[in-house]
């Protein structure tokens, strides 16, 4: 009988420093594995665990650095510099939409707000009917949601996890007659620090750092950080491994070149990074859909100022959601007010004395994040050579998407006014605020769509999906219903890029379910991939 022991703390990681100091590796080295997983976030960690548990020799490659949870400082500014993609500066080509993404061991699961939502049955049934994804029909996939929910300790917020910000949202909803409910989160005994976005130093957030990665390691999976995969090696229509460079995370200098020979390659870099890698690898994309159909689920944050000090940044970051409009309009509202630094990307805070007064209102503020459903018309493209090329993320709101954002911002503002807000700051590049509902519409009407909606709303996205969509038709989809890239045997995708169409739900839980589903499909086809 095999004894499997999970490390008490942390994850065994080979980082750039270890590579440099290991004479056996040197400037160039090769490794063999059954399965190489690119990316260690929500999708990659689950696949790695499942494959390692099944007895496969698994290697995980993560481009970001390893930041053990014990080293988290709860300083958002420092965290953004170290483990957010491009220091929380990953933008679209017009530099007005922020794509927030973690780039570290554990990926975005480390910096997320822990909101876990399961798409409505109608959404999953739609995927089954419209894209031939029969395995994702509600009755088939529900057990996997349940399993992952148990593994990640997903549960509904209790009363003590509803902070002052959330209470204002509840108050507003009650007066407006809107339906609300506590959110479900993947947290164990939340310490109510409010620093989710800076990583959880006490390991209460069930991120990949404390769940699937150490579990995978317990089954023998090996993890390299600081390792940027440049391309997937493909021979005769079959994936044979990957090429990568190991970079010093502080200087960016390449310290070693790496080659991994593997029977199966699983790409799990997320909505932005996965299509970039597949494009660099020049896969034969018959559908022409690789990097396209990106849904961003844009969100803006509406800030309300109340008469009494709320200290709305204390307690659990996300308390409640407003579900009144989720099915009907595709709007999702969640309460939340993070650290002071985060306010800088949410609206226009004035300059000089006005800015200082705005910041001094911090303790009187509450925030609502207003997400809206988009049309999935974004794209991601790699340009230039393998090492020094660059990405282009294209998405600007269409007129309809712009109107949706305006409407969701207006609803969120009304919730705060109903809860007694003295003032609401609107999430715009131009400084706009309203002191009552009568001013609100007038202020919102000043936000002019202009050219492609550029520099109108301060839009963020944390939930983008769909750039390598899954489906049965190889001329419409990039990835088969098994998760395998059409035309390349042994090359799988297991992340948010699989999601076939825009959805109005936080995708974290779905991504982990899809990863487990893909891992099961790989196992089901083991005889065609593995010798034994």
């Amino acid at each position, binding site marked *: 009988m095999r004894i499997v022991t999970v490390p008490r703390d942390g994850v065994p990681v080979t980082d750039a420093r270890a590579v440099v100091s290991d004479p056996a590796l040197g400037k160039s080295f090769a490794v063999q594995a059954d399965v190489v997983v690119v990316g260690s976030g929500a999708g990659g960690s689950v696949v790695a665990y499942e494959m390692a548990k099944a007895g496969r020799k698994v290697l995980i490659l993560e481009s970001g650095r390893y930041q053990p949870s014990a080293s988290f400082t709860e300083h958002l500014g420092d965290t953004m*510099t170290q483990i957010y993609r491009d220091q929380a500066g990953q933008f679209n080509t017009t530099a007005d939409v922020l794509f927030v993404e973690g780039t570290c061991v554990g990926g975005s699961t480390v910096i997320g707000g822990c909101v876990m939502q399961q798409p409505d049955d109608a959404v999953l049934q739609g995927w089954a009917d419209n894209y031939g994804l029969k395995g994702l029909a509600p009755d088939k996939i529900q057990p996997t949601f349940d399993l992952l929910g148990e593994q990640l300790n997903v549960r509904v917020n209790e009363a003590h996890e509803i902070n002052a910000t959330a209470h204002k949202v509840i108050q507003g909803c009650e007066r407006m007659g809107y339906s609300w409910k506590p959110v479900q989160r993947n947290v164990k005994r939340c310490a109510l620090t409010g620093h989710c976005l800076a990583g959880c130093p*006490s390991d209460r957030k069930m991120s990949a750092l404390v769940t699937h990665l150490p579990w995978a390691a317990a089954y023998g999976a090996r993890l390299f950080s600081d390792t940027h995969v440049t391309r997937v090696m493909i021979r005769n229509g079959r994936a044979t491994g990957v090429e990568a460079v190991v970079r010093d995370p502080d200087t960016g200098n390449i310290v070693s070149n790496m080659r991994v020979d593997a029977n199966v390659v699983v790409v799990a870099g997320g909505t932005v990074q996965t299509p970039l890698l597949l494009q660099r690898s020049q896969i034969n994309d018959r559908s022409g859909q690789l990097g396209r159909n990106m849904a961003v689920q844009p969100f803006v944050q509406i800030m309300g100022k109340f008469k009494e000090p709320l200290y709305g940044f204390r307690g659990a970051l996300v308390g409640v959601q407003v579900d009144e409009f989720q099915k009907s309009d595709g709007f999702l509202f969640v309460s939340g007010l993070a650290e002071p630094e985060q306010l800088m990307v949410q609206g226009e805070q004035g300059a000089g004395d006005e800015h200082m007064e705005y910041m001094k209102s911090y303790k009187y503020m509450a925030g609502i994040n207003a997400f809206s459903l988009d049309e999935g018309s974004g794209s991601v493209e790699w340009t230039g050579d393998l090492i020094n090329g660059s990405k282009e993320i294209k998405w600007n709101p269409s007129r309809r998407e712009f109107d949706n954002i305006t409407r969701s911002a207006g609803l969120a503002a009304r919730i705060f006014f109903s809860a007694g807000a003295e003032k609401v700051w609107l999430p715009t590049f131009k400084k706009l605020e309203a002191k009552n509902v009568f001013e609100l519409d007038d202020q919102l009407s000043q936000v002019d769509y202009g050219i492609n909606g*550029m520099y109108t709303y301060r839009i963020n996205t944390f939930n983008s999906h769909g750039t390598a969509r899954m489906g049965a038709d190889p001329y419409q989809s990039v990835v088969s219903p098994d998760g395998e890239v059409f035309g390349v045997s042994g090359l799988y995708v297991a992340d948010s890029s699989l999601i076939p169409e825009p959805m109005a739900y936080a995708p974290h839980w779905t991504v982990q379910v899809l990863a487990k589903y893909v891992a099961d499909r790989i196992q089901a086809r083991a005889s065609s991939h593995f010798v034994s």
Partner: protein
Amino acid sequence: MSKTTHTPAFMAGLEPLSRRSVLRGLAVGSMAVTTGCSRLFGRKEAPEALEYKHLTEDEVRTVIKLTGILLPAEKHGLPSALNDVPTVKNVDTMVGQMPKQTRELLGLALWVFENRPMVSFKFRRFSKLDDDKARDYVLAMQEGAFFERGLTSTLKTLITVNYWRDSRTWPGLDYTGPVTETWGVRRLGNAPLPRV
């Protein structure tokens, strides 16, 4: 008709000095006094004296000026954005870690922001404007065309994030900052292996 001016005897010798020369002299004098005072009272290094590794000299001038305009923190009982909190140095560090493409865009943005006032402020660069005019310029840019709004918001975000990230600014907001250690929250470590 020419106008005759009579200079008092005690001012003899000052006539050749233009107004600009007087101002320059005043500036040099006040700089000397400031330097002396700052040494006397142990003031920290002025931002101009710090070493910046990633921003160019011109960029540093623009960032310092904009920091002063955006964040008049001392007036509001908060640590100075130029002398207490190393805002500009923080910006410099962040710039050092930017991808090449982003860095190039930022350089362009700073150049445009610095030189945009040449059109409307009599060929003066932003960093050479007096504070009132510089403030007017920033506000006008914020209300301007979409690219002006974007440019201003980007630079404002860069600077203000690098001020408010400093824990010395937080007591002024009644923001407690990190609490896990203060509260003695126990670390749970890794989750146990699932049973299934």
